[in-house]
């Protein structure tokens, strides 16, 4: 720095230009604040969901007691004799979800096992997106297919009502297969190759390595995918609204018409019930229950998935 060559004016000027420009600094800070505000939108969304849903739900429970909601076995909020027992809606949701998972778990796991353990990489590169297309089809389309193709087909074999839990559940299962398959596939691929090779060295066959080594090692990821699949099925609306009907019944008979929580919500909304009316509030009470159930399932799934990640990385 004591070199006399650098002590002229041009050096001073170039030095100044390298120093922080105050206006530039403010500009940078404003940008950071704007980006922070963008990230805040997601927090505000959650906040909005919680405040709005639970505010109306609180209003609901001022008129209808917890006991009426959770202990009654009839759901007839639109009839003259009003009952607010939520169990028929829960039963409908449970029934269609159970059928959907009976389809999605085997199909999803078969897809994941085949793609990870058997398929050539080039074949897997074609088949995986093909399966994932199932998740990209709008759910209203599955509703159409369930009502107008699957139900008439099944009615040749089993006696079913026109609206029934079975067709809706089956199509919902097909729709959820990629959810289960994709996350299971990632979990299965995360199992280190050395475990499989160790198994082969002990004289085990490929199939035995899958059932005794790979699947147990990937179990937490597979369970996480199944729980996420259940959450999707519980929250699915259009397929059950179109194909499962709108008759809240406390039943486990898949041949009958049922009503799910989501289908009830879709039925009651759409401007039919004015704000502040009790009908309007039932929409939010059922919505709050749905939100809490899916939130719990998502958190559990996330928690299990994170535990398995730590294991191998």
């Amino acid at each position, binding site marked *: 720095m004591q070199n006399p060559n650098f002590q002229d004016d041009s050096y001073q000027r170039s030095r100044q230009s390298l120093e922080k420009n105050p206006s530039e600094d403010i500009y*940078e800070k404003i940008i950071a604040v704007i980006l922070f505000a963008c990230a805040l*939108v997601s927090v505000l969304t959650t906040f909005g969901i919680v405040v709005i849903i639970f505010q109306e739900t609180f209003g609901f429970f001022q008129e209808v007691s917890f006991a009426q909601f959770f202990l009654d076995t009839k759901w007839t909020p639109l009839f003259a004799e009003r009952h607010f027992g939520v169990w028929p809606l829960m039963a409908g949701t449970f029934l269609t979800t159970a059928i959907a998972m009976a389809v999605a778990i085997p199909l999803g796991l078969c897809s994941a*096992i*085949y793609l990870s353990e058997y398929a050539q990489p080039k074949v897997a590169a074609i088949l995986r997106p093909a399966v994932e297309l*199932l998740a990209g089809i709008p759910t209203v389309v599955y509703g159409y297919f369930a009502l107008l193709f699957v139900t008439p087909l099944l009615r040749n074999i089993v006696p079913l009502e026109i609206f029934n839990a079975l067709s809706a559940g089956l199509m919902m299962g097909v729709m959820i297969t990629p959810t289960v398959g994709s996350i299971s596939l990632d979990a299965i691929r995360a199992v280190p190759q050395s475990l499989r090779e160790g198994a082969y060295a002990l004289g085990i066959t490929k199939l035995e390595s899958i059932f005794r080594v790979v699947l147990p090692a990937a179990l937490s990821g597979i369970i996480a995918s199944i729980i996420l699949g259940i959450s999707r099925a519980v929250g699915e609306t259009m397929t059950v609204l179109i194909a499962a009907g709108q008759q809240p019944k406390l039943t486990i008979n898949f041949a009958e018409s049922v009503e799910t929580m989501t289908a009830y919500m879709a039925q009651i909304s759409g401007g039919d019930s004015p704000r502040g009316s009790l009908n309007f509030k039932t929409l939010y009470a059922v919505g709050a229950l749905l939100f809490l159930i899916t939130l719990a399932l998502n958190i559990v799934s996330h928690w299990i998935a994170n535990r398995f990640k730590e294991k191998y990385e």
Partner: protein
Amino acid sequence: MATSYQRDSSWDLSTEFSDNVEKRETLGKVFEIIFLLGLLIGIFILALLLFDIFRDGIARFLTPGFLTENPSRFPDQGGIRPAVVSSILLGIVVIVVTVPIGVGAALYLEEYAPKAWWTAIVEINISNLAGVPSIVYGLLGLGVFNYLLGFGPALISGALTLSLLSLPVIIVTAREAIRAVPDSLRNASYGLGVTKWRTISSHVLPYAIPGILTGVIISISRAIGDAASLIVVGAVGFLTFNPGLFQRFMALPIQIYSYITRPEPGFANAAAATIIALLTLILVLNGVAIYIRQRFSIN
């Protein structure tokens, strides 16, 4: 170890072992076929579904004016223009709202956010929002946009609801794209004395754009196919004009639902024809996403 040496008699397991190999390998083959079948059933049903919809709907889809006329009370007349216009408008608003906010949030979380307890909460919150059912977003939209902001059951309420619905997915995919940008690029830029935002806007963002766009288009095509939230917000099943931002609105999935619920037989064909229109729109969007990824991705 000592115990295993004592059980000498167990060593003849080896004969049993070799005897079984063929059987076990055969069982392996059988299961390989079962796994493959499980994989193919899904694809087979997809093919069947598309075939069924084309068989039911293609004739109606090809009737003149199906895309350009107003709906009619008669199943074999009129068209779906208000629904098409609504869906395109919804898509445009969703893009305008979610792309800047989603990319901004992703940039903040990847480039700016300090490692603190509250950023962890924001991250957990976003992944949880991605799992909230569409119909619950409908409740949020109804409360905030219809009543609190007073838009009523208008297209803007539906569009903003769909925007909130798409936002978490866009943030997640944009973050992945931004994270994939090599640090050497940022360091080179900082090394030349470039400020943070200029580094991001001139180096990080251009590099991440193909990934971001792919995520954006995929989530837009999901939003366009979504009906549950729009039903709650108040989309209507019958409209005879092209909606503006602050008017009652439709959407292609709502049009499909409305056709399915009508009892006269011809409406099923109209629903199938509308499904063809919706799937075509989604297919085109996905095609664009794939094209962008192929064309602009830097290896």
